[in-house]
């Protein structure tokens, strides 16, 4: 009787284990299934697909032709537009991100003094961040900096005759930098949240010890804010590398004049959907990933030299 029962139980165990495992895991996988499908079919599958395509020549009409690293070699050696796009994009990132963050921090510190009307100011400064990505604002920018635009009209009242900012390759990129700085509101909100975390008695103790405001800023505010600065820096830089709409609208899709607003993503768009060089555009996409990954990794490695963590 006893042996029979154990035999029977042993015979049943694999099946019961299976149904037990199913019972435990099924709900989780059911809830996760939309994301899983998206992950495989729309994210990781396509990402691997574009990695493969980056080693091919593909125009959508004939099937992809394997060309090895030719696309990457062409980028590095034989494509002046790639060089132009890199230069424009790095200049844009290097100018717009620090300026935007400096502005955001300066205004956040002013707002953090306990002024009346904080919610109103915060709302006003945040509004451009929310609207800034739309075509309407790019249209507006195009007209602000046109030959007969608002900026030149204002300059004219001071007797200065301004150039046509957007159609002059020496200035066009800077109009886009200004557009980016104009949207300082969202990093400002993050800075404000960070400033609120700094205990007020630190400043009281410091001023008891006779530390000047300047010293307090460099010895208390700035070090304690470094994690927030780091966060904003990474997010804003990645975002700046991916900027597209303003350059597209302001330049009418060309990246001109003379490639002066040829943002990397705009160049990628032209190669992919203007010339249907899908292989080359895929290689461009993977170089962008490499740039962003390298930047992020370097940022994280650099944190031990300048980012101050409490613990």
């Amino acid at each position, binding site marked *: 009787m006893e042996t029979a029962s154990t035999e029977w139980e042993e015979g049943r165990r694999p099946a019961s284990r299976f149904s037990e495992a199913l019972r435990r895991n099924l709900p989780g996988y059911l809830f996760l299934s939309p994301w899983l499908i998206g992950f495989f079919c729309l994210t990781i599958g396509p990402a691997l697909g574009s990695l493969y395509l980056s080693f091919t020549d593909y125009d959508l009409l004939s099937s992809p032709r394997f060309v090895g690293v030719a696309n990457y070699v062409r980028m590095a050696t034989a494509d002046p537009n790639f060089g132009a796009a890199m230069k424009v994009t790095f200049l844009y990132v290097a100018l717009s991100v620090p300026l935007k963050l400096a502005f955001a921090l300066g205004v956040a510190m002013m707002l953090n003094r306990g002024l009346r009307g904080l919610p109103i100011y915060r709302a006003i400064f945040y509004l451009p961040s929310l*609207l800034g990505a739309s075509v309407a604002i790019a249209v507006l920018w195009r007209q602000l900096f046109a030959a007969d635009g*608002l900026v030149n*009209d204002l300059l004219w009242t001071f007797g200065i005759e301004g150039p046509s900012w957007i159609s002059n390759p020496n200035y066009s990129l800077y109009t886009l930098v200004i557009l980016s700085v104009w949207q300082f509101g969202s990093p400002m909100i993050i800075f404000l949240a960070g400033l609120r975390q700094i205990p007020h008695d630190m400043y009281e103790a410091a001023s008891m010890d006779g530390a000047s405001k300047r010293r307090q800023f460099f010895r208390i505010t700035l070090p304690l804010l470094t994690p927030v600065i780091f966060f904003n820096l990474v997010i804003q830089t*990645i975002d700046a590398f991916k900027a597209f709409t303003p350059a597209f609208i302001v330049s009418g899709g060309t990246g001109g004049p003379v490639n002066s607003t040829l943002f990397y993503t705009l160049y990628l768009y032209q190669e*992919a959907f203007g010339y249907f060089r899908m292989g080359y555009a895929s290689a461009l996409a993977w170089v962008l990933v490499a740039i962003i990954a390298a930047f992020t990794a370097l940022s994280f490695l650099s944190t031990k030299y300048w980012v101050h963590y409490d613990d």
Partner: protein
Amino acid sequence: MTDATAHTMPGEAPAYPMLRSGISHAVLMAVSFVMLYPILWMLAGSLRPADDLFGGNTSLIPSQVTVEAYKDGWFGLQISFGKFFLNSLIIATLATIGNVLAASLAAFAFTRLQFRGKAVWFALMLGTLMLPYHVTLIPQYILFLELGWVNTWLPLILPKYFAVDAFFIFLMVQFFRGIPKELDEAAMMDGCSPWRIYTRIMLPLSLPVLATAAIFSFIWTWEDFFGPLIYISDTGLYTVQLALRSFIDSSGSTNWNALFAMSVLSLIPIFLIFLFFQRLLIEGIATTGMKR
């Protein structure tokens, strides 16, 4: 909050709290004015008569108010802008529903259910946060081309129902973790199914984060230019952003105030959301560090 200037030490310049806050207000008001000036100028421009827009017109008050530009703009392309607004509204609404639904399902699985491989999936999900969409762009386009979905709205809507924007999952995971587990553990004891716990406990308790996700999702879809630019070529299917772009090309530099009028209209939905949900937007950014 006490003003730090109240505690100045001897030797420093005497503090004038009133003066200092006065200066701060003056600076902040000046910055506010400069920030808002372009938007107000666009609004003023859209209300001016066509021959009054440029040539020294820097003021924010039109000499004469007319809605002529709005009429011109509304019928400026072969199809009226009403159609483009409707298109954008449909796409943004459907995309928003998809994002909220799919992201909340995944976030519920990640925070409340036990299953094998959860940690790995979670790490992969976080990994996709950093992945620029450019690497998936071309194969996705080829996929949708093969499916015959190019020049339809499906590529703009359907991916959201598969939670491709991991950001919203991350946002909801952060919120769900703050909801006490005792609630659903008790419900589980009473024999509630995960589905019932999700619909009856988690969703009702997560309205703030669902609203935040919905608002951002709506705004981002409304403002999206790249997606429609790639996938939509029929004018009848255009979104507002695409219509604005083709309006620039068709009107050139001749009809700027009609273009301004349509630009102003395209910003109104975002502006209204901003007016009514400002607190949710700002809290959303402050707690998660959203990019916009």
